[in-house]
Every structure is written in structure tokens, then in C-alpha cells.
């Protein structure tokens, strides 16, 4: 298959035969996956299921043993500016000497190109992105002085400022307060309704049905994928998490 030909262009994310291993333990095994454009998709699975590895492999941050990945039909290298990525909050040192606006401007560095510095236009766009996540009053605040939820919003703003059609978030709701979670979800739903594709690594099974319309269940292999309505079933949940989950995972009980 040639690189300049579109492969599965009708899928926002298309993954085929993807296998990743750390040493001799497979982290992901023979993943086949399609996420259509315009959905808000949860990637769920137990700890160690390979959720973060999956998106890191999709973004080219982890080298797969086998398989290929396409975003809207193109390899990730051709789609860099069109994918907004929100890494896990704990992946960086928040004692870095900088403020919230500066971090958001980092989302524009790529479009600036080599050697050029962000100017007045970048500043305005960063402030607008901060306002979108309700952080306009904290633009000049040192990032070490932000709460966990505020740091997460800054990270989200850094992805938003790129104005990308595809957004990928790694555990954005981990360790944030209820207010921040509500802000993030409302914003993501708005983006989805505006036609963006939102892919979220998510850990809270009880909110999957109310937040998302598409889901991928993962435990090293793909357990199930599709619209939440058809995929969020006791059988699938048991297959992904084991039989002890029956109580939490009753779809009827958790329905919105």
C-alpha cells in the first residue's frame, strides 16, 4: 500500500493488526479498530489493558511490532497538525517555570514552524482557548499554583487552540473535581456536535453511558466496539473486566 493513497478515509481512526509489546509481554494484541468521524468515543478497560498504549501507538509515540494506523485515511505523520492530544496530567512536571497562557501557546508551536516565536496573534488565540475552558482569569498564573482540575483544563486548552478535527485525551477525568469534569464533558460534547471526533481514554464505567455515544472495550485485545447503546452490555463488560463486575456494570442501573 502506498503512503500517498488514502486507506479507509471514511474512518476518523482506523487501526489494523496493531500489536505492541514491552519486552516479551504483549501490551496490545492484534487490534482491529474503527472509529467513525463525529462521535465521542470512550476507550475503556481495566488497569493494564493497554488503553494509553493504544493511543500512544496510534499517535506514533510508541513503536508497534506490527500493524498500521490511519487518521481519516492518512498515516499519522501527515496528520500531525490535525490531531489535538491531551496527555495524562501526571506525565509532566508542573513545577516548570511558566504560566497557563504559555502552556496553551505550545499548542501553536507546530503551526508557527521552526525558529519563529509566538506573537500577539498566538497570545490572543491562547487566551480564547483558556476562556473556552473557563480559565481566562488564570492566564498569568504559574502552572505550579493551579489545582489538578485547573491544570487539566490548561492541557485541554492547549489541544483546543490547534482547532483540530480530531481530539485524543488520555484520562482527562482522572483526579479532577466534579466541576471540572462537568466543564470538560460539556465542552467535548459541544465539539462533537460541531463535527469533531473526540476519543477519550476513560476509567469510570458509571459515566460511560451518559457521556459517550461510541465505545471501544479493551483488554490487551479488543473485547467489543461500536455505539454505546449496543456495546455497553453485561456480557461485554464481564469479558473485559472479569465476572466480579456484575454489580457495577448493570447497564439498566446506570442508564441516564
Amino acid at each position, binding site marked *: 500500500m502506498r503512503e500517498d493513497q488514502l486507506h479507509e478515509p471514511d474512518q476518523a481512526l482506523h487501526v489494523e493488526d496493531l500489536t505492541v509489546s514491552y519486552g516479551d509481554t504483549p501490551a496490545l494484541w492484534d487490534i482491529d479498530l474503527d472509529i467513525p468521524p463525529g462521535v465521542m468515543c470512550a476507550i475503556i478497560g481495566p488497569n493494564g489493558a493497554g488503553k494509553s498504549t493504544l493511543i500512544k501507538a496510534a*499517535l506514533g509515540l510508541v513503536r508497534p511490532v506490527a500493524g498500521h494506523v490511519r487518521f481519516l485515511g492518512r498515516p499519522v505523520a501527515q496528520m500531525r497538525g490535525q490531531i489535538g492530544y491531551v*496527555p495524562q496530567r501526571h506525565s509532566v512536571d508542573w513545577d516548570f*517555570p*511558566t*504560566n497557563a497562557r*504559555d502552556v496553551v501557546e*505550545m499548542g501553536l508551536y*507546530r503551526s508557527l514552524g521552526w525558529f519563529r*516565536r509566538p506573537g500577539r496573534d498566538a497570545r490572543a488565540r491562547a487566551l480564547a482557548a483558556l476562556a473556552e475552558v473557563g480559565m481566562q482569569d488564570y492566564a498569568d498564573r504559574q502552572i505550579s499554583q493551579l489545582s489538578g482540575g485547573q491544570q487539566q483544563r490548561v492541557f485541554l486548552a492547549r489541544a483546543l487552540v490547534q482547532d483540530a478535527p480530531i481530539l485524543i485525551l488520555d484520562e482527562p477525568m482522572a483526579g479532577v473535581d466534579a466541576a471540572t469534569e462537568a466543564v470538560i464533558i460539556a465542552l467535548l460534547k459541544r465539539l462533537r456536535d460541531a463535527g469533531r471526533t473526540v476519543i477519550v481514554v476513560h476509567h469510570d464505567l458509571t459515566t460511560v453511558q451518559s457521556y459517550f455515544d461510541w465505545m471501544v472495550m479493551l483488554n490487551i485485545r479488543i473485547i467489543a466496539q461500536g455505539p454505546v447503546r449496543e456495546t455497553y452490555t453485561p456480557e461485554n463488560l464481564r469479558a473485559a473486566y472479569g465476572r466480579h463486575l456484575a454489580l457495577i456494570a448493570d447497564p439498566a442501573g446506570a442508564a441516564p
Partner: protein
Amino acid sequence: MGLASSAIVQTVLLGAALLGAISGMLGAFAVLRRQSLLGDALSHAALPGVCLGFLIAGGRNLGAVMLGAFVTGALAALCMMLIIRRTQLKTDAALGIVLSVFFAVGVVLVTVIQGQGGAGSLGLMTFLFGQAAAIQPADLWIMGGVGLVALGLVLALWKEFKLVSFDPDFARAQGFRVTLLEAVLTVMVALAIVVGLQLVGVVLMVALLIAPAAAARQWTRSLGAMVGLSALIGAGAGAAGALISATTRGLATGPVVVLVATVVVILSLLLAPGRGLVWQAMAARRARARISDGRVLAALQSVARDHDDPAHRVARGVLATALGAMPAPARLAALERRGLIRTAHQPPDPSPHWELTEAGHAEARALSGAPAEPSR
């Protein structure tokens, strides 16, 4: 002859300041990327290269020495990378192994060369702990050249270096050549080390990378300020250390530079506004005082309410019982100065009583309605 007019002292001062500035600038990035110990391993690993340079050039030739140091330093970095990738060992273990093995080889070579005697061994020891007086005017050109290249790269690739130092994963996802950028930063640190060897010595070189950055971080709120201040502190520590050592017979420069830099670090850790220990202790004290004052006001108001008399005078024992302990006289005096309470006497009782003023009542109401915001 005045100190500054001596050509030798001028050379030494300029060289030490240049080197300190380069190390400070690059050290800021190394510290933020948590790579300070890599600098330690690289500088120790430079020793065998220094010796090989001596052997091949047959004496103290700065070019040969620097080339040798750079080659074995790079070899050490490569070994470390291989150990981390190919074995189960973690970074700290790999650093320890590589550092000690290369340093051991270096010390063996030093003793071999000294055993041979002759002109070749003269000046070798200065590379262990540094000797600022050994800096030649010609060396300044090399230092200046390295400094200019480093400064140029940092200015040209400023936003890329910032992004890679803060969030390399995001940088990679954005399509930046992260491996290349990290390699450039590491090579520049190696260059700074190689240039600084004869001044500070392989053993203590790492302090000139870490100390200025650690001190600068305390005082600054942006990367630009941190890198700039770190370079300034490095230049100052280098110049001061070189001056002390060059004017005192037989005092190795490295330890003196490190001690000067350490004093700056300690002062910064203690005194810097916001992050300094003294500053934080004072902030905690203020917070405690505010809380205790609030409790005094609340107790006085509650007793006054019990008596249905806003101007009720509260006896010492009553106040102590309401609070669990008598507040410090200084706190009561402070409240009185702020016009929130008034000392009064309630004859025939000779002991002091306290009553809330109008302002005191208002403040107590405000405190009970809206608790003071935690200082952030």
C-alpha cells in the same frame, strides 16, 4: 599591580565567567529535563579521554584534551543508552555503573602517565579538580566559540527546547523531531563540560551545571528568566571562585567555585519570595496568627451575645476558657492596635478585661459569615 590589571587574572576571570555562563544556561535545561546526573556521568567519563589526549599529543594540548574528553564522554552516553535499552537496569543504576567504570579507567591512566614522569604528566592533575590559573588566552577563543554556538542554538530553537523540556510526548505527537532536539541539548551539555574541565575539574563539574539552575529556579517565574539568571549566577560563581583560587597559592578552583555556587543555592532556597523556606515559614506564621485572631474575636463576640451586651467586658479567665488557652499577649496587642478590641477595667476586679469595638464586631461577623480564604 592591581588585581584586575594583571593579564593572567583577566584571562582567568573572563574564562571562568564565560564557562559559568555557558554551564548555567545549559544546566537550566538539564535540570528541568531531570538530566543533571547525566552531566555528572559525562564529566567523570571525560577523564580517560583527557588522559588519552595527553598521551597522543605528548603533553598539555587543549585541542587534543577536549577532543579526547568529548569522545569518551560520548562513548559513555552511548553505553548508558544501551544499558537502559537492552537490560532491566534503571537509569540510576546505568549512570552509576558507567560513571564509575569510566572514572576508574581514567584514574588508572592518570597514574600510568604520572609513573612515566616527564613533561607529559605536568598539568594532568589540574583536570581532576580544576585549576583556573592554567587557562591560556588562546583557550578563551574556544570557550567563546562554544558559548556563541550554544547561545545561538538556544535562541534559535527557544520554543522547541522549551516544549521538549516541558512535555516531550506532546512535542512528539505534534511532529517535532524530539530525539534530535534532545540530542542537541545533550551534546551541548557535553560541550560545556568539556570546555569547563580544566577550570572546575571532572569531579565537580556537575555542580556548575546544577547549582546555578537550582538557585535561579527559586527566583523566577518564566523559562527565559530562569535560563538568564542561571547563566548570570554561573558566571558570577565561576568568576568569584576563579579569582579566589588564582590569588591563593595551590587552591584548586573546582571546590572553590562549587562552594561559592552552593552559598548562592542555600541563600536562594531560604530567601526567595514565594518558594524560599523563610518566606514560606513567615507565610505560615501569618496564616496561624490570622486564624488565632479570628478565634479571639469570635469568642469575645459569643460571650457578649450571651450577655446581650455588645460592650460586655470579658474577663481573662472567661476568654482563656472559651479558647482553651490564653492567647499570646502580642496577638491581643495586635488586635488592639488594629482597633478591633479594647482593654478595659471592670472594677472592683483589678485584672484586665477585653471588649469588642464596633469594628471588632463587624470583623467577627464577617469572619463567621465568610471564612478567610486560604492563602494561595
